[in-house]
Each structure stands twice: as C-alpha cells, then as structure tokens.
C-alpha cells in the first residue's frame, strides 16, 4: 500500500505548483486554474488522510471543496468576461488603476 506520506508529498508539490502559478502567470484564466490546482491538491490530501484514518469525514470535506470550487469558477469566469468586455484583455497585470 502506498504510504499516506507519499500522497501528502504529492499534494504539497501540487499545492506549491499552484501557488507558483498564481504568482508567475499573467493570464487570468491560467491563474484561476492554478488556484483550482491548489484546491485540488488539498482534496488529494483530504482523501489520503481520510483513508489513513479509515473514515469518511475527509471525503465529505472534499465534496464541499469541489462544490465551492465550482461556484468560484462560475463567479471567476463571469468576472473575466466582464473585464474582457471593458478592457479587451485578461492580463491581470493590466489591472492596476488603483495603487498606493
């Protein structure tokens, strides 16, 4: 059986990749995908822990995370569409009307 630690390491790697994606990518959609990656890495951890403890709480949590992620995507895509209409661009670096 694959040890739980292996899953946790995998999830941590994915989480770090997601975080780096948020930091480094400019395309808003890719940034969202990176955030999704972070949430899903948490899902991996949750499911792995759930198996480790031999109970369902982690799975339950995972479903909630998936649901919320879906809601976030819906809102996020709507925002992107709105911004694209105004700016003709989804480059998040071009969002700096306000600073200081």
């Amino acid at each position, binding site marked *: 059986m694959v040890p*739980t630690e292996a899953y*946790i390491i995998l*999830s941590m790697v994915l*989480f770090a990749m*997601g*975080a780096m994606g*948020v930091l480094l990518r400019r395309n*808003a959609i890719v*940034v*969202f995908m990176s*955030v999704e990656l*972070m*949430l899903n*890495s*948490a899902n991996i*951890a*949750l499911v*792995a*822990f*759930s198996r*480790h*403890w031999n*109970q369902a*709480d*982690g799975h*339950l*949590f995972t479903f*909630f*995370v998936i649901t*919320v992620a879906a*809601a*976030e995507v819906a*809102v*996020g895509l*709507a*925002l*992107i569409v*709105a*911004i694209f*209409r*105004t*700016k003709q661009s989804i480059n*998040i670096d071009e*969002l*700096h*009307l*306000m*600073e*200081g």
Partner: protein
Amino acid sequence: MDIPSFADLNLGVTLPAVFLALGTTVLLLIDAFLPKERRHLTAWFALAGVLVSFVLTLFNFGSSETALAGMFVADSFTGFMNLVALTAAAITILLSIDYLKRTGNARGEFYSLLLLSTAGAMFMASANDLIVVFVALELLSIPLYIMAAFRLNNAKSEESGMKYFILGAFSSAFLVYGSALIYGATGTTNLQEILASIGGIVEAGSSAIFYLVIGAALIVVGLGFKVAVVPFHMWTPDVYEGAPTPVTAFMSVGAKIGGFAALLRVLVTALPFLVAGQTVEPVWQNTIMIVAALTLIVGNFVAISQSNIKRMLAYSSIAHAGYIMMAVAAAANPFTADFAARSALIYLLAYTFTNLGAFAIALAIEKDDGSGTDIKDFVGLARSKPVLAAAMAVFMFSLTGIPLTAGFTGKWFVFQATMQAGLVPLAVIGVLTSVVSAFYYVRIIVNMYLSDGEGDEAAGATPLVNWAVYISFAGTLLLGVFPILATNLTETVTLLASVAP
C-alpha cells in the same frame, strides 16, 4: 454510524442563519416575478428578512446548543455576532437603495447577494467544524466578489472585484489546505474533537504535530486575509476604493465579523493548547501578536498618506483589525480567553456602527460617477451640511477612540484584555498607534470645520442615507455612554470548550 433523526439535527437553533440563507432564494424569486415598476420593493423585502432574522436571533439568544450533528453551535457568541452582522446588513441596505439607483445599478440581485454574504458571516460565527468554517467563508466571500464588481462597465469596480476574487480564492486555498492538514493530524474536523486529540498527538511526539501547527498557521492565513491583517492586507485599499461604496461599507464590517468569529472559534476552542515542547502554551500567540503589531503600525501609518476617503478608511479598517487582533492574542491565555473574546465582540459592535456611519457620509458626498471621494471634498462640509459634519466628527472621534464614543469603549476593553493577558508591549503599541491614528482622523474634522472653501452639497444624503447615519450615530453614542448595553449582552460568552488542558 447512526443516522441521526430529524430531531437530532436540532434545526431550531440554526433558524436565524438558515432563514436568511433560504430567504435569499425566495428574494431572488420575488425580484424576478415582481413587475418592473415594483422592483424597488425588493430592498424592503430584504430589510424585512433581516429584521425577522434579527428577531429570531433574539429569541435564541443565550442558548448553548449544538446542531447538525455537532457541526453548528448556537451560543451567546453566535448570537452576538449574528446581531452585529444583521445590524450591518440592515444599515447597508439603507445605504444601497438610493446609491444603486443614482449610479444606475439598481438590480434586485444585489440584496440577495448581500443577505447571502450576511448569512455566511452568521454561519462562520456558528461554525463548530472546519468544513463549516470553509463553506461559510466561501458563502461570505463569493457574494462579496460579485458585489465588488457590481458597477457595470466600470473598470475600477471590475478591477476591484477581480483582485478580490483572485487573492480571496488564493487565500482560501491556504485555508482548505490547513484544514486538511489538521484533519490529517487529528482525524477529525470537529473543533472539540480536535482539542481532545491534541494531547495524544503531543504525547506520542509524532510528526502529526507538524501537520497540526502548519495547518493552524494556514488557517490563520486564510482567515487573516478575510479580516485584512498585515501581511495579508494588500488587497484591501484597492478593493475598497474600486467597489461601490455601500459594498465597501459592508465589506469593511461583514467580512471582519465572519473572519474574527471563525478565527476566535478555531483558535480558542480547538487549538488553545497547541503544545510547544514541554510547556503548555498556545504556539499561535506570538504569531498573532506580531501580526497584530504589524497591522496596527502599517494600517495607521499608511492611512496618513491617503488622500482618498475610501482608501483612508480601508487602511483605517486594517488598523482596526489590528486592535481586534490584539484581543485574539489575549485570548491565547486560558485565563483571559473569555474576557478577550468579549472585548473583541464589543469592539466589533462599536466598529460596525462607527465605520458604517463614516462610510455613509462618504457615500453622501460621493458624486454619481464615483468621484468626489477625496478628503478635500470634506472641506466646508460643516457649513453646508452641519448635521452630517457633526455626525462625521463623532465617527472620527470614535474611530480615534475618544471617550464617550463607542470606539473608546471598544478600545478600552481590548486594551484591558491585552494587559490582563500580560501582553504589555502589544498594548503599548496599540495605544501609541491610536495616537498616530488621530493624525488622519482629525484631518477630516479639520477639513470640515476649519478649512475655507465651498461646502459640498452632499447630493447623496437622501432620507434613507440620513437614517443610516442617524442609526449609526445613535449606536456610536449609546455604546460610548452606556457600555453596559454591550457588556450585558456579552456576559455569557465563553469559547473555551469544557475539556481542560
């Protein structure tokens, strides 16, 4: 595992929040089926919903029960937080009705979103399980993302929503991961059960303690973002500036209510004895202290150099998050935990009235195109609108913490709690930074009363907005003169679980 019966769910105590959450759905339908000329009624339905929920909360107040298989808790803490959140929602509705109309964004879904977000804050205050914390947090946040971008075809508003959304989602990913790690360490997501299993983990000396501590850290990050404490505060000024002003007003209190409720609940109930080495002490106290100190310093100092009232209030709200964070730090000490939690509640209530009032006046002098939010626009207001100027002066005094205002009451309790917990340096920083804060608050008063210039006609000061100002004004003064009103309500608040260390 037994399947709980319907009665076991104990739905009665969940009613205030559940009613509001379900009510929003109804509200959406009402808005959809109302004839166009009657659409303005949606807001009043929303206000009625808030009032019903308020009454329901009052009926439940003082109980101490769990519901939904232990995931939900209804006690004085929840009750008080609910009252504060509902007050904020009600005042925000009053502010929004005319504002949305005159800026051309009068759409009924706004109120549904507002109520959903309020329900989110209420659920956070009732959360007794990490899953609920997460779901409630998202319920609080997602409507806020939308509301921040609510001004159609307005680049600033859209930018504001986008920034908030990206960073908010980013931070909630940390929260989820932190919850996952805590679950991994303890095998449960229930706050009381987490507390119960910590002792075993520490005794076993296993690596689970690392999961636990990192998990706690990530939860602090996720919630710290919501309440805008340094270094997770950077979104605040941009989002506050770009969002429609009523949304900003609600965001500045609603998100803090939910965030601090969950932060206190998780840290004090579930993780009060995260053990460091051989000594029993909460490992998070130092972190929270540093965060509080940084927040106080950054918030108060940067506010000085702002020229936009909304940005200034944004930094001011960061600074106030720092004061509440002081109470959280004080709650790390088991002996002062309850008192600290109570002081945080009182501070939140005082801050809600004062801050909403300040935003109401900022909204009153704002022009329809969103301009007119400069601090210079306050020049001469004492001559053109003496009542509003007087109210604004009181709000500014309250935010500074001058006695006989609500702000003083809140600060007094928070500093008291901090001193009792032995965090003298933090209290000193708190006092010193409030002195600094006088710098920028008083500047508004100086502008209104002492600077020469044509006063603004305050086009936004419609009767509804004036009512919002009056309510805030009354709350600010009442709480300042009769602090006992708040202390009575918080008397029974306790967050410590019955499990002894």
